[in-house]
């Protein structure tokens, strides 16, 4: 196995433990406190669903980029990677707008334990999206010059992982009320 791929899988495995700990903590507290449903009712399911759709679509582009990179077409791979960047950026902007409306409504990280978990889990995930967007931009620029095309697959594995984490955050924070 190439070193880069091994490294990305090691990152993914360690991230499973990090996010797994946060999600498991949230689930056990949520099950123990029925009152959290009152707080959870203030999150907007449609915003969460829209962001899920955005992440799903950005992952489609990264899959196309991987395929193009394997075919040796760096320019095409780069174009698809930039589309993924657009998706990730949209996700972060929507998240920022959502948080702004929640904070101005008085739901801050110190409002209650539910909101502490909400901002910690969603914030940690958003940081991973931002890191992914930065790496995607670097790899897109390299791919356009036909350089390091194997890295397209590596950022893809990371981006899919970020997407999978969101698959679980979405029902936990936006649907289970």
């Amino acid at each position, binding site marked *: 196995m190439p070193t880069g791929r091994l490294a990305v899988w090691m990152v993914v*495995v360690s991230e499973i433990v990090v996010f*797994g700990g946060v999600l498991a903590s949230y689930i056990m507290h949520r099950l*123990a406190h029925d009152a959290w449903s009152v707080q959870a009712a203030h999150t907007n399911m449609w915003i969460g669903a829209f962001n899920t759709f955005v992440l799903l679509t950005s*992952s*489609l582009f990264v*899959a196309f980029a991987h395929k193009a990179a394997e075919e040796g077409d760096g320019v095409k791979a780069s174009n698809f990677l930039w589309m993924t960047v657009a998706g990730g950026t949209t996700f972060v902007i929507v998240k920022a707008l959502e948080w702004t409306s929640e904070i101005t409504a008085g739901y801050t990280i110190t409002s209650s334990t539910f909101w502490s978990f909400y901002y910690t889990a969603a914030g940690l995930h958003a940081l991973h999206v931002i890191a992914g967007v930065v790496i995607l931009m670097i790899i897109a620029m390299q791919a356009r010059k036909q350089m390091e095309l194997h890295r397209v697959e590596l950022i893809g594995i990371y981006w899919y*992982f970020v997407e999978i984490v969101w698959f*679980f955050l979405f029902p936990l924070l936006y649907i*289970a009320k």
Partner: protein
Amino acid sequence: MSEEHMHHPNYLKIWAMLVGLLVVSVAGAMVGIRVVTLITAFGVACVQAYLVAKNCMHIGAARRFVPYLVATALVLMLLFFSGAAPDVMKPAGVNWVKPAWQEAAVEHDVSLHEARH
């Protein structure tokens, strides 16, 4: 199948399936029945994660130790949950109590008693 020459499935079809599952999870929440909501939401999340890991991350084509590593991380998460959940979710144990929970339970009992009389 070689690890270096991956088979690329129809990504558009997988994307359509994932979007369809997203619609199911949102529709399940709109039904308004708690059990249906939870089953559709978390069931869909598990299916979506499986589809992405299998078809997009190509976890099946990676070296065998990769799925084992991922499974180990998931088992560690379950171990953490099973070890910590009783302390978090129960009001008292063998040598410990949660005073705030007990006070809340007493207040709840008093208010119930007052409501009945």
